[in-house]
């Protein structure tokens, strides 16, 4: 009689853990968003949002498209098409890096042309904290994506890794979703 | 439990003598169950209701627990069989869900009523208005319409319940969070910078009411004491008149006054009608009209004044008043000057 392999009851560990992490991170972002919204219009001095903020439409589109490209990359890997995977994964990194570049150049302009820093006023504090926290998560994501790229280039990524990369892509989708919220709060509601 | 009882018996004697110790009929001058003003009375009535409900719940559940613990002990001689396994009962679960919900709703409504009556009370036109500004570690009192500025000892008129003359306090802070708590007069309300608060009292009897800061505000939080003098209307009006006067000028103690005015004292303290106009520390214009110094910490006597000026740490280590490096003689001279500020 063959001993049946114990069937694990329930979902896979990776997505469950990643969703839990996303929940925790969402709670952190929520607090920063609440602080941002609470302080809208309360800065006593210094540049105000409508004076200095320009909605970064192009860079936002880059970031949101990178969600599509990472989805296509994982889908390609699942089907065993590693060339597709490589191209779309690379595209994701490029789009993410472009977004980051956009944030940094916006900050450069705000600091040196408009004189807005984190210590200028309530707007400065809440803006740099919220956008900076998001940017930090983009950087972490890019580091992970680049590490995967390095593994791929050295021939170590195979079709069976698709599930794990799917878990990583969940993180990337989360980063994008947070940007949708941040964009709405900072550039639409707050201005 | 028996051990606990005998312990209580042993401690009863010192406890009983402690009951006799304060001259207060209520065990304590800051007893929340000895209200003397409408907000404190409202809270007291609500608290009695809550205590009755919780006492009833306690008796019922405690008795059930005690019964279970005694009745269902394992017998010394058991037949080795497990008792009947009961997995649940929908009726019981419903009962002990619905009944608590009803109790909770009742308590909620009772509390909601008192919240509204205290927080949304109308401000009559004859109300006394006081602005309280919390500092580390003293209380500043301003009567804007009566044009009085003083510190640490608050005077309000008594309020006849038939024709109330309440005092409305606006609560601000110059530095960290504080809390104004005079239990016999009202519940506590916090003083938070950039967040003005409001409370009111209408004491029904004259007398001195005690309290202290109830929100940790730094090193000397423990000695930020409150003294509220409830005066008769005449006494209160007289006190206001006296406080409105500029400083009493006296030729005596001119040496002390000189030291006071050339040392940095004047940068923190104000004496109306003189060059001293600092606002960081208490207003000293009528210092001798107060019974205590250092926010209630020491009696206002010349000896204590000398000690306080010489080394503030003797009464309040870590307070914000620095030792100005005066000698004992210089401190005595300044104290002699302050004693003229009636």
């Amino acid at each position: 009689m063959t001993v049946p392999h114990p069937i694990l009851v329930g979902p896979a560990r990776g997505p469950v853990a990643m969703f839990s992490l996303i929940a925790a991170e969402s709670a952190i972002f929520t607090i920063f968003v609440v602080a941002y919204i609470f302080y809208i219009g309360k800065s006593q001095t210094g540049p105000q949002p409508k004076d200095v903020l320009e909605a970064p439409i192009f860079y936002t589109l880059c970031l949101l498209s990178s969600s599509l490209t990472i989805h296509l990359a994982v889908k390609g890997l699942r089907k065993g098409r590693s060339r597709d995977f490589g191209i779309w994964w690379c595209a994701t990194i490029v789009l993410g890096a472009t977004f980051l570049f956009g944030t940094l150049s916006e900050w450069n302009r705000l600091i040196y042309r408009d004189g807005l820093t984190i210590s200028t006023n309530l707007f400065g504090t809440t803006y740099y904290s919220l956008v900076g926290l998001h940017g930090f998560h983009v950087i972490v994501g890019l580091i992970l994506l680049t590490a995967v790229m390095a593994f791929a280039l050295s021939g170590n990524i195979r079709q069976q890794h698709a599930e794990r990369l799917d878990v990583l892509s969940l993180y990337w989708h989360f980063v994008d979703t947070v940007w949708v919220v941040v964009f709405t709060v900072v550039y639409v509601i707050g201005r | 439990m028996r051990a606990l009882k005998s312990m209580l018996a042993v401690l009863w004697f010192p406890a009983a003598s402690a009951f006799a110790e304060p001259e207060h009929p209520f065990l304590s001058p800051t007893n929340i169950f000895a209200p003397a003003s409408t907000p404190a009375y409202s809270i007291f009535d609500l608290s009695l209701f809550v205590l009755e409900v919780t006492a009833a719940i306690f008796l019922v559940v405690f008795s059930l627990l005690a019964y279970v613990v005694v009745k269902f002990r394992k017998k010394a001689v058991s037949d080795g069989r497990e008792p009947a396994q009961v997995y649940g009962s929908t009726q019981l679960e419903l009962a002990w869900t619905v009944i608590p919900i009803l109790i909770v709703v009742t308590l909620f409504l009772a509390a909601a009523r008192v919240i509204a009556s205290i927080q949304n009370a109308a401000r009559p036109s004859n109300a006394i208005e006081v602005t309280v500004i919390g500092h580390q570690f003293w209380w500043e009192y301003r009567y804007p319409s009566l044009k009085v500025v003083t510190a640490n000892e608050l005077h309000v008129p008594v309020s006849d319940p038939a024709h109330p003359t309440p005092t409305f306090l606006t609560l601000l802070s110059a530095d960290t969070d504080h809390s104004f708590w005079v239990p016999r007069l009202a519940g506590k309300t916090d003083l938070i910078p950039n967040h003005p608060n409001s409370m009111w009292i209408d004491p029904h009897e004259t007398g001195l009411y005690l309290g202290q800061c109830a929100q940790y505000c730094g090193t000397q939080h423990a000695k930020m004491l409150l003294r509220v003098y409830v005066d008769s209307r005449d006494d209160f009006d007289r006190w206001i008149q006296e406080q409105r006067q500029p400083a009493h000028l006296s030729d005596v103690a001119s040496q002390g006054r000189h030291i006071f005015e050339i040392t940095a004292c004047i940068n923190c303290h104000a004496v109306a009608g003189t060059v001293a106009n600092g606002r960081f520390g208490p207003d000293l214009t009528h210092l001798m009209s107060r019974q205590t110094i250092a926010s209630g910490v020491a009696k206002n006597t010349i000896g204590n004044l000398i000690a306080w000026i010489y080394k503030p740490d003797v009464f309040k280590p870590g307070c914000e008043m620095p030792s100005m490096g005066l000698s004992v003689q210089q401190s005595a001279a300044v104290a002699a000057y302050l004693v003229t500020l009636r």
Partner: protein
Amino acid sequence: MSTESIAWRAPQAAARPLVDKLHEWVTTVDHKRLGILYITYALFFLIIGGIEATVLRIQLIRPHNHFVPPQVFNRMFTMHGTTMIFFVAMPVLFGFANYLVPLMIGARDMAFPRLNAFSFWMTAFGGLLLYFSLLGANGLYGAGNAPDVGWFAYAPLTSLAFSPGHSTDYWTLSLLVSGFGSIGTAINIIATILCMRCPGMTLEKMPLLAWLNLVMAGLVILAVSPLTAAQIMLLIDRYLGGHFFDTQAGGSAVMWMHFFWVFGHPEVYVLVIPAFAFASEIIPVFSRKAIFGYPVMVAATICIGFIGMSVWAHHMFTVGMSSSANTFFVLSTMAIAVPTGIKIFNWLATMWGGQIDFKTPMLFCVAFLFQFLIAGLTGIMLGSAPFDWQLGNSYFVVAHFHYVIVGGILFTLFGAFYYWFPKMSGRMYNEKLGRLHFWLFIIGFHLTFDFMHIPGILGMPRRIYTYEPGRGWDVWNLIVTIGVVFQAAGVLVFIGNLLWSYFRGELAGSDPWDAWTLEWSTSSPPPAYNFGSIPTVRSRRPLWDLKHPDDPDWKYE
């Protein structure tokens, strides 16, 4: 399959060098070892936190005492609170969760063993960082001082203006670091419970301890994160010139309170729900009855989790919120009393009709029931906002929350120690010493915390290093301090018992309590792989089914 198991002893190889053994412990990813590391770490800090409390109580034994100056007192109560919550209560509960959850759900380890180790070491490092402040911080009062801003560190007291030097930063950073550890453990618990249950163990057949730790982990995820966010904001204020809580620049001190208590209130449910879990495992076994109303117990806990996220501002009733806000929080606070009360009734009903055996674990759990009832009722008093306007920030509150944390959580923790010590060590503890611990500690607990309510009623605020004579507080403070002696004695007996029994206790066997959950089916202590073969279960009490094949649980569930 037989429930008998041969007591398995490690083969007597040549004694390994101590360095090897230590290395094994430091590099372990085994959930049982990490659990023991967490628990030992917490016990060590329990002693330290207890010493801090003793210093506080000696200073307050009479008015105008000069045992310690105010600066030291303020550091003591800050460190006492911070240590007890973050480096005693949370680690010990994570430790028990780590040890028990995989065993009780029939798994070989947690879902992510390396994350588990990382989380423990983050927490451990956080505690060390906090205490390094005694050496490393630099404030106005000379080299080396611990934070003195209270465990809830209200703004603007924590701003650089009012807390110069680095003591506040040690508070912030140590909690930030250990917070990451807590979130890691929570993720691990959730993934383990949802993904690694043994065949047959659907969610409705999980032991209550697993369910309650699942809810607790969810709360950690949602609650610790706001604290993390607030601490990042505080660091930005202190070091980058930010204005989150800078009232001079229009910032809001009340916002810190909201963010802190959004963490702080669910945090107490994070602490008490595992305590409920211990009671829910111990009371049935020592009453010889299944837990009464399992589905309702699960539902009530989930309700407590949800409602617990909506009551936070009952810590802020005196702050000057509008009457509608105050009223809402009274409603939500009262509401949470309902599922909590349901649980007490269910434990009561579990004992009803049973055959109660008052071994030490059960003694502690029965005392928990009485004491948690009282704690809940004083909580209802505090939840009536106007009553809280008098009682809040006074010794009544201090008495209430110690009643919950010591009288509720610590008592069930002691019960859990005695209940699972045989499983973890393979040996029975000494029952007489256990009883001595119980009686000493319960006398001390009641002396201290029953009488502590009275100074609060008589107007004594908290966090004061001394008080005036003539306020009527003196004798009550004296009694409160005397209770400390008994509690300290009890804890010493407890630790002595654990140590002595570890080396000299009689062998326990795999199932000394005739219990019903999976951890008792393996040897004591369990082998590294937990189970020879992964079990399959059909009911909530798999061992009951095996011991009563004629009357198994799955016929009735």
